[in-house]
């Protein structure tokens, strides 16, 4: 056997296209053991009746990192983004899937009792997970979002529970935390239950299996296996230690009720395998005969006859070592507990590869970061051993413990009736793989088969039912739905919206035809519209050639495109009431689009982006293509208001920049405002303009007519006009004048228009402003009103001699303040900047006048940016009571976020 294997390996490594290989070997014929049209390798030596046979390598639209067999018989798969596809194993056709609305890469997944695929987690970036959950309905091509989990999960495992709930464990929150909290998604409520007393840090994508007693068994990949009781707040058992130790990126499968195989994994990889029988009183791992090959990144796939197919992986050290691919497949027989080597796959399938059992008994092997967008299909030996048992009829739905009839002319040679759950596989782990061997008797018309007895032995949902004959040959599967009336008695049969033209990714030009149809609905009962790249919806007409459908003939000649590339083409189906009932999107590829005339140099605005919501301090950035900074100027204006110049900046590339503080601006109302940028050359001539919209949300007019009136007891009374009909409360802010940074000091209720600010310091000037809180935020601020409390008899007056008002500060500087007439020992003074903490000053007699001083090194401080900052001085008497305050503004030149960078003054001591 190795004679042929070796050249095939070599060829595989040199040839990416199978057609080359086929021609080179010249020993392949078309075969169709699995009712497909693909080429099958028929090598000279390996007898397919003994070892089966791999198909040609097939191109695949994307790298199918997550792959699932749907109850519709189609295979759903997705890769690194929210871009799922369907593959029909019977026709080989690909079609798109509705978007989930979040990045479903790195999710956990399993099938619900009604056939929907339930996803948990997702991908923000490597090791940073989404908290999302959602279910995909394969019958309607729609997604249903469910509440977020406690936190993100990147690489979690889903496990079906007996009552239809789904256990989700593990997954990374981010690079510093793995999610230790197991959670159960409850079918009845669609909400999450926390297993707060079962919190452990588990490996990524742990191997989890539902047992017949309702517990869940974690078989790995760590060396500590455990049982999880998911009732109440959860409980883990004591660990059962495996002899093989860590098996990360190995694989595991429950090959019989309560019997689990773990195989391969670790780094460097192992060829060892272990089994455990969880039906005995004291389960323990038992080492069985090893594989012929060491491997990690391998996948274990249950076949209809109960054997386990091992595919893919690497034998060398490293996370995903493509230099040491294990091409040979292996088959594990649970009766002999031994592996048999099978023919090699064409190329390395390691990290991100999957394998999935198909309804016709073949196995799809695809993905992996080396092989990528390709697939092979394995036809096991049983497909070459004679005629397959056939099923004339079988129920589509069966109930627990129910005996049901299966009509077959081959009843006499059937030796087993096996239910195989629909697979859902990623990252070397199939999370929804299970076999149930059903008791049966032979009847006059076929078989009488008895359904599984409990939902723990076989969770409700869709299964493939295979009849196996004495030669081990399986029938083509019949899809049956195992139902528990209590869970979901209604079968999910709904119209399916299909776009038949154009196919996804198709190049389009000239006159082209779009076609779409809704199964099970009369043409008169629905309408379909198409739109390209979010442009307007265009109706389609009824088409009756072939299957009734909606069609539109489009002449794309002379269309203006942004350039060559893919464009989204969306189809929207509506019912007679005009309600959207389905959507389907494909990409079309526009080739040879005429390039956009470059014309004059373009003014490129990189900030803000179109439609950006703006508030507070924000940056505007723009640059002229191909022009030196000295050759032009750029100004900005909002809503036709005055032009404001921008400064040169070389941060991240030469451009013009302006830092704008929108705080306190008066707007006409919430909504978009045009922001226009105007570029002029050195002669002052306008050479380009560019406009973007900004969205301002803080534009609700606030209170007006704020007045501040000094009272007689160191208090100030504020009054204002309430302009807001739906205010929730008013917030009063204050600062010690002169000042720009206010601090919230109080709130008053809705419709209250006065506030008495008591307990103030005598001889101090205060500024106030007021705004209202409304349902979706706050209004704009009122005008600023100020008043000064009088210095009472004997009221100390704090004098600040350094810094002076508006002084520009950097490096080491000195603050000085004093109270005339008070002995230095009778008071203290502290300073604070922008409301930050108070810092004490020291007694000083430099210059002959006793005062308080502080030597402050501003080097290395973090500032919000260049600008004025309030510096407040607070004097307290010996009892710690504030007796006087004084504020000045200082101007700080900070390292700016953009624009010319001033040299920084380094303070010295």
């Amino acid at each position, binding site marked *: 056997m190795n004679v042929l294997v070796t050249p095939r390996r070599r060829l595989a490594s040199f040839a990416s296209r199978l057609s080359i290989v086929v021609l080179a070997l010249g020993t392949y014929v078309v075969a169709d053991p699995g009712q497909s049209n693909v080429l099958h390798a028929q090598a000279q030596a390996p007898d397919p009746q003994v070892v089966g046979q791999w198909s040609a390598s097939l191109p695949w639209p994307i790298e199918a990192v997550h792959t699932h067999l749907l109850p519709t018989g189609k295979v759903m798969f997705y890769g*690194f983004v929210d871009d799922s596809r369907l593959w029909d194993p019977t026709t080989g056709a690909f079609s798109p899937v509705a978007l989930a609305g979040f990045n479903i*890469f*790195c999710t956990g997944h399993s099938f619900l009792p009604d056939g929907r695929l339930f996803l948990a987690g997702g991908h923000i*970036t*490597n*090791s*940073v997970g989404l*908290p999302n959950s959602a279910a995909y309905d394969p019958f309607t091509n729609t997604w249903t979002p469910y*509440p*977020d989990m*406690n*936190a993100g999960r990147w690489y979690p495992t889903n496990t079906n529970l007996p009552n239809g709930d789904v256990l989700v464990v593990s997954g990374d929150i981010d*690079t*510093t935390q793995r999610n*230790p909290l197991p959670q159960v998604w409850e079918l009845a409520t669609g909400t999450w239950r*926390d297993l*707060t*007393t*079962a*919190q*452990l*840090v588990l490996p*990524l994508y742990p191997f989890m299996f539902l047992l017949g007693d309702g517990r869940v068994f974690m078989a790995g*990949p*760590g*060396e*500590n296996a*455990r049982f999880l009781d998911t009732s109440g*707040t*959860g*409980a*883990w*058992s*004591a*660990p059962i230690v495996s002899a093989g*130790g*860590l098996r*990360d990126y190995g694989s595991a499968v429950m090959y019989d009720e309560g019997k689990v195989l773990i195989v391969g994994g670790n*780094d460097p990889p192992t060829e060892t395998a272990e089994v455990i029988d969880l039906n005995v009183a004291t389960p323990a791992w038992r080492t069985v005969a090893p594989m012929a090959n060491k491997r990690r990144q391998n996948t274990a796939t249950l076949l209809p006859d109960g054997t386990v197919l091992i595919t893919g992986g690497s034998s060398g050290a*490293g*996370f995903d070592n493509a230099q040491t691919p294990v091409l040979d497949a292996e088959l594990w027989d649970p009766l002999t507990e031994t592996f048999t080597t099978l023919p090699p796959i064409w190329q390395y399938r390691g990290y991100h590869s999957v394998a999935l059992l198909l309804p016709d008994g073949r196995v799809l092997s695809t993905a992996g970061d080396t092989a990528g967008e390709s697939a092979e299909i394995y036809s096991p030996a049983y497909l070459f051993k004679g005629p397959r048992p056939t099923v004339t009829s079988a129920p589509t739905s069966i109930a627990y413990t129910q005996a049901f009839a299966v009509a077959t002319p081959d009843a006499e040679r059937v030796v087993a009736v096996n239910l195989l759950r629909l697979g859902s596989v990623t990252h070397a782990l199939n999370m929804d793989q299970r076999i149930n061997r059903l008791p049966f008797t032979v009847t006059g018309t076929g078989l009488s088969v008895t359904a599984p007895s409990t939902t723990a032995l076989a969770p409700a949902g869709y299964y493939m039912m295979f009849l196996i004959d004495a030669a081990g040959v399986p029938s083509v599967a019949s899809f049956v739905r195992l139902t528990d009336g209590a869970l979901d008695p209604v079968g999910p049969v709904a119209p399916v919206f299909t776009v038949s033209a154009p196919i996804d990714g198709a190049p389009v030009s000239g006159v082209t035809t779009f076609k779409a149809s809704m199964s099970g609905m009369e043409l008169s009962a629905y309408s379909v519209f198409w739109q390209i790249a979010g442009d307007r919806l265009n109706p389609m007409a009824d088409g009756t050639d072939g299957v009734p459908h909606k069609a539109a003939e489009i002449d794309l000649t002379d269309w203006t495109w942004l350039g060559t590339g893919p464009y989204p083409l969306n189809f929207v189906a509506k019912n007679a009431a005009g309600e959207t009932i389905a959507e389907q999107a494909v990409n079309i590829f526009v080739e040879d689009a005429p390039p956009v005339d470059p014309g004059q140099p373009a003014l490129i605005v990189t*900030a803000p982006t179109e439609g950006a*919501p703006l508030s*507070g*301090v*924000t*940056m505007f950035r723009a640059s002229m293509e191909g022009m030196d900074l000295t050759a032009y100027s750029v100004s900005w204006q909002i809503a036709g208001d005055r032009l404001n110049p921008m400064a040169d900046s070389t*941060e*991240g590339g030469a451009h013009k920049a302006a830092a704008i503080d929108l705080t306190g601006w008066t707007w006409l109302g919430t909504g978009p405002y045009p922001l226009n940028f105007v570029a002029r050359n050195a002669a002052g001539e306008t050479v380009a303009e560019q406009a973007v919209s900004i969205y301002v949300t803080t534009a609700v007019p606030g209170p007006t007519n704020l007045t501040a009136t000094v009272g007689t007891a160191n208090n100030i009374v504020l009054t204002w006009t309430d302009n807001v009909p739906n205010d929730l409360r008013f917030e009063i802010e204050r600062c010690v004048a002169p000042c720009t940074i206010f*601090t919230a000091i109080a709130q008053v209720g809705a419709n209250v228009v006065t506030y008495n600010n008591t307990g103030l310091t005598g001889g101090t000037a205060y500024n106030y402003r007021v705004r209202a809180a409304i349902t979706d935020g706050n209004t704009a601020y009122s005008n600023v009103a100020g008043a000064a409390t009088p210095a009472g008899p004997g009221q100390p007056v704090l004098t600040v001699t350094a810094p002076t008002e508006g002084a520009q500060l950097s490096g080491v500087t000195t603050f000085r303040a004093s109270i005339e007439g008070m002995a230095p020992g009778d008071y203290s003074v502290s300073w604070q900047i*922008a409301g*930050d*903490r108070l810092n004490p000053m020291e007694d000083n007699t430099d210059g002959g006048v006793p005062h308080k001083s502080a030597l402050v090194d501003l080097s290395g401080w*973090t500032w*919000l940016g260049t600008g004025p900052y309030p510096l407040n001085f607070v004097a307290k008497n010996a009892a710690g009571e504030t007796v006087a305050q004084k504020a000045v503004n200082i101007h700080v030149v*900070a*390292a700016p*976020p*953009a624009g010319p960078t001033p040299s*920084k003054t380094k303070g010295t001591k």
Partner: protein
Amino acid sequence: MTVLRMTVRACIGITTAVVLAAGSVFAQGPRYAVVDVGTLGGARSVAVAINNHGEVVGNADTATGDTHAFFSSGGLIQDLGTLGGQASHVGGISDKGLVVGRAQDDSGVYHSFIRLRRGQMWNLSVLDAKLGHKGFSAAVSVNGAGQVVGYIHTHGNHMAARSRAFVFKDFKVTNLGSFGGEDGVVAGINDSGQIVGYYGTEPHADYADHRAFIKTGATVTPLGSMGGRTTTPSDINNAGHVVGSGQIKGGEERAFLYAAGKLTNLGTLPGGTQSFAYAVNNLGQAVGAAEASGSLRAVLYEAGQIIDLNTLIPVQSGWLLTEARDINDKGQITGTGTINGRQRAFVLTPVR
């Protein structure tokens, strides 16, 4: 009296190795008062860090079900908002109240943020265009000097993405690269600018094999291994002592302390299989989580012992403390536990 002696030793024991090597017996009875930090209107909250003023930051559910970074001080909890998106997550807080983390913009992309004690969240990608790419970035720690460390992912594509560490100071980002490995991830920075993190021996350090290091000036020193293929630091104190967890041979994690050039296994609770150390204060006390009877408990590593913090709070408190994330120099501890069936951030304050 033993208790008093040990407390004194712990307080003056700047050399953590000495402190951890000593034995200790603690008296019965509560040592800490426990306070529920609350939420932002939703069901749950988790704590991330506490500074020496007792100010706590973490993440909490809002009334609409989103997760937002919060700041808690004096019993009040404040929503720190986002950068225009739905979610934000805290990395750390300095004694000056500088909060750092990551937050989503309106297109859902996470950017590193900083926030002064008062005021709005600042997008580091705006403050320095070096972070202004469209990929992910997260600020994870800040020291007393206002230096912020974090990491970016260079690419949105999972396979092409590489982690690169950065330090941010004075509106400038400095790319720290990947420390000689394929990827570089940072975890903490102390007041003298020493940085701890890990680098991958092959791409995707965050989940593939990686090694911990401490960076002092330009010198990168590996911390060693606990016997497994990953060593993951969490924090560094001003004495340069590092805590974290490392994989052991069978795949489980063990808390470690790195001090004086030596990596020490901090052990587990009796019968437990895993332990983690998330933070170490300047007195050499560390906190984290460890398994007891199949579930994680918040623990204190002190004076050579690993102590279940649930044994140091009032018996009738109703709390199950599941992880301790940070400890300040006053001995206050913050973390996450369960009370009334809900995950909540807590603060433990020593009462004796």
